[in-house]
């Protein structure tokens, strides 16, 4: 007991020291969003090394926790809470969701042309893609009740054709990559009628799909946004449960065995991680410089963007599987590679959430007042759009979010390894390749976040 306490004391001391160091580095860091990402005043290599070292150090810190029952207790901890007037709350949320969809379709075509004054644009990008996503991993996933297409699909007749199992999650992988590619290459955030048209097309596809295969199957297995929200919701401390809410520690649900149940699901989780990176990558000067010779050589920009998207995805997927095979060796385990890939994919969701928060929190806070204003007067543009100015230290929050996502991922992977392996040191060794991959990924994403933001080139 005394020994354990001593190790705990050492662990706490080192954590505090590491955080002090991280804090110092991030104070120099960039800032996101409209207030322009500032250049880093420490050399970039040092800033990236510090981030990578923080992730490596947190792996070492996690390795000090070798008490199996303590880890299991942390991940099993939960409380139940009842929701007062649950039926009323669910019905109200459904009405809000459908009203939101109607507002996007109507205001998109008939509202003000200025994107930052148009409710459709603000509702989709600020309210939904930034705000609701954030609430999904910070609080809990409200999308199943808010989702207007789900509400409408339940009202429509259904053919209930059986979904071909061999397709698995692959259509949703393609759908996610396709949607984010479309978001990047088209002026969807600047052109309200185009956005409304796209939403109308998505509505048609979704309602037909849900009518053919049944809403439950469609939103569970095919619809990319529903799947993104469901996975983000697993990071959150609150989940809906039969008859109420289940409260747990953030991230602890990611160590459950049945969350990711095949290589197709692994591909989806990696795609989610990759698209959040791609979203930021295409606004860096480096991407522009890379693109310039390609476009001048006559390659159409759209094809170049698609190639970049696919190449990066294959790179991420390959890196992950490489880590899986390496982990099988360092842990000397007979557990199949596919099973290791499934079990160690969920921690990536914590990283994706951290990166999403870094990318969108500033943007959300910036434009939230404009969203509120547009919701009150959807058909008349205000004289001046309300925008929240963020203080300079806010850039540190973005960097902290990236690091926190990684720290949570390190912990979840550690707990999962203890669930998988009989040897405690074996569990730690299984994490060497994953930690190496995470250090690399932290450095890539910190680099993206610290880059000055340029407008998406050649489109």
């Amino acid at each position, binding site marked *: 007991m005394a020994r354990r306490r001593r190790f705990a004391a050492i662990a706490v001391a*080192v954590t505090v020291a590491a955080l002090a160091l991280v804090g110092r580095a991030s104070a120099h860091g960039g800032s996101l969003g409209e207030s322009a990402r500032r250049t880093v005043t420490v050399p970039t290599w040092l800033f990236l090394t510090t981030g990578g070292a923080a992730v490596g150090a947190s792996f070492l810190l996690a390795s000090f926790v070798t008490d199996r029952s303590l880890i299991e207790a942390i991940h099993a901890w939960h409380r139940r809470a009842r929701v007062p007037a649950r039926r009323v709350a669910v019905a109200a949320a459904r009405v809000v969701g459908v009203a939101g969809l109607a507002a996007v379709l109507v205001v998109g075509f008939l509202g003000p042309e200025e994107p930052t004054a148009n409710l459709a644009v603000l509702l989709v990008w600020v309210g939904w893609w930034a705000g609701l996503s954030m609430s999904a991993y910070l609080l809990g996933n409200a999308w199943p009740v808010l989702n207007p297409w789900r509400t409408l699909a339940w009202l429509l007749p259904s053919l209930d054709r059986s979904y071909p199992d061999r397709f698995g999650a692959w259509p949703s992988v393609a759908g996610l990559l396709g949607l984010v590619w479309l978001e990047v290459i088209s002026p969807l955030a600047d052109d309200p009628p185009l956005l409304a048209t796209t939403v109308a097309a998505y509505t048609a596809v979704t309602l037909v799909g849900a009518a053919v295969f049944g809403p439950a199957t469609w939103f569970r297995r095919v619809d990319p946004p529903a799947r993104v929200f469901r996975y983000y919701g697993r990071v959150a401390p609150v989940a809906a449960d039969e008859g109420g809410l289940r409260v747990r520690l953030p991230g602890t649900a990611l160590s459950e065995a049945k969350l990711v149940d095949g290589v197709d699901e692994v591909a989806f989780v990696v795609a989610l991680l990759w698209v959040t990176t791609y979203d930021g990558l295409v606004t860096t000067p480096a991407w522009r410089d890379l693109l310039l010779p390609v476009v001048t050589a006559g390659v159409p920009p759209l094809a170049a963007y698609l190639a970049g998207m696919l190449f990066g995805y294959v790179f991420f997927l390959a890196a992950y599987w490489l880590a899986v095979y390496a982990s099988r060796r360092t842990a000397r385990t007979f557990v199949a590679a596919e099973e290791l890939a499934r079990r160690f994919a969920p921690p990536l969701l914590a990283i994706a959430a951290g990166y999403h928060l870094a990318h969108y929190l500033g943007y959300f806070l910036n434009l939230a007042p404009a969203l509120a204003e547009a919701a009150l007067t959807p058909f008349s543009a205000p004289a001046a759009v309300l925008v929240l100015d963020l203080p300079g230290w806010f850039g540190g929050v973005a960097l902290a979010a990236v690091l926190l996502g990684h720290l949570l991922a390190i912990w979840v992977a550690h707990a999962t390894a203890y669930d998988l392996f009989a040897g405690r040191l074996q569990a730690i060794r299984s994490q060497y390749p994953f930690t190496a991959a995470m250090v690399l990924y932290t450095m890539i994403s910190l680099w993206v976040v610290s880059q000055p933001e340029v407008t998406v080139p050649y489109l």
Partner: protein
Amino acid sequence: MSDAHESDVRGRDVPADVDRAATDAHDYDVPTDEPVYRCDRCGRPFAREDWLRLHRGIDHPDALDDEEVETYRDAFADEQAEIRRFRLKALGALILIYFGLLMVYAVL
């Protein structure tokens, strides 16, 4: 295999849900040219005998005979010694990372 789940070697009844290993089976990919130590209760293969001993203590705690309990304790103690050495190295690495970066920041 299933008999072991109903009552342990000492004749006590074991509730079915105690046997975690029986409920979450894993997929395995066992090479043919390496020594394999298999659990006689749930069939899980291990590359090292001490991992099999540890596994018995972790996943079938109520189904062990006295000798198996003893081998589990020995394997656990050996592992503990190994972990202690690992912790020293990890602590060394942490100190290296911390002071290394601190020095770089001080110089710049």
